[in-house]
């Protein structure tokens, strides 16, 4: 899966900015790394678990077959 090749969207950025996402409201607010680390710490609680996704073994095998 490569980078999206759609027309580089000033339109898309403008749309989201106008919708309020870019107003600095979330800027720096939720670091991905922090989110995963925090969720992993909660793994023992009763809440449904959604954290810690990783490459499947199937995908790893595909990469291994393609190696040097």
């Amino acid at each position, binding site marked *: *899966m490569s*980078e*999206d090749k759609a027309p580089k969207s000033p339109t898309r950025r403008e749309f989201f900015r106008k919708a309020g996402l*870019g107003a600095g409201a979330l800027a720096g607010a939720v670091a991905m790394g922090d989110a995963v680390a925090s*969720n992993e710490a909660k793994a023992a609680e009763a809440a*449904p*678990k959604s954290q810690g996704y990783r490459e*499947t073994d199937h995908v790893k095998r595909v990469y291994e077959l393609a190696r*040097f």
Partner: protein
Amino acid sequence: MGHSHCTTVQGWKDRGAIPVKQHVHVLEAAQRLGIPLTREDLLDEVAPRPPEEMWRAQCYMLLARLLAAPPDDALLAMIRELGDDDTEFGQALHGLVAVARQANSRTVREEYHDLFIGVGRGELLPYASYYLTGFLHEKPLAVLRGDMQKLGIAAKEGVAEPEDHIGALCEMMAGLITGAFGEPASLDVQRSFFETHIGSWAPRFFQDLEAAQRATFYMPVGRLGRIFMSIEMEAFALAA
């Protein structure tokens, strides 16, 4: 590294970034050559995503963190500092900030329990299978598992809960956007995933959350989610 990779490495130099899915090979090669190199060293080399895509990913992660588990004190403290503006989204965020200022992690944990866990079941069942068929562990979950396999997403081991939970799905969307599962997914792939697993039911769930009897802190979470879903759907339609 063999001859066949000269082109690839040159390509990485040219673009100034090493694709995430190559990291395991680079790390293994470094290990064989005795070069100290860690995954953290490589993360700086991942091509950055455009800001609008990071905004989306941050929204999904915020929702994921709030829905997968009740927020701890650290997350509440962070939410209290969020800014807002006079857009519908900004106002929903303002509402969340306001309740975060009134709440503490204990009261929110109790509310979360009543809403989602309860005795036997909570007030709400935030699962795609439930909203789409009336039952848990249904075809939507099977379809999701198939797509997760294709996309290289694996559920964490030892987890009892089905993966079609709204918190899990939000985390998957964030990962597709940022490239956490290998490389950032194209908009077409994102749209397909969204429409199949989220757009078909999550707006209704967020509406239900907003209206839920036991929702105080989670009422603005529902509102924020509902508005964000609309934004996502409109954006996907624009990019079609």
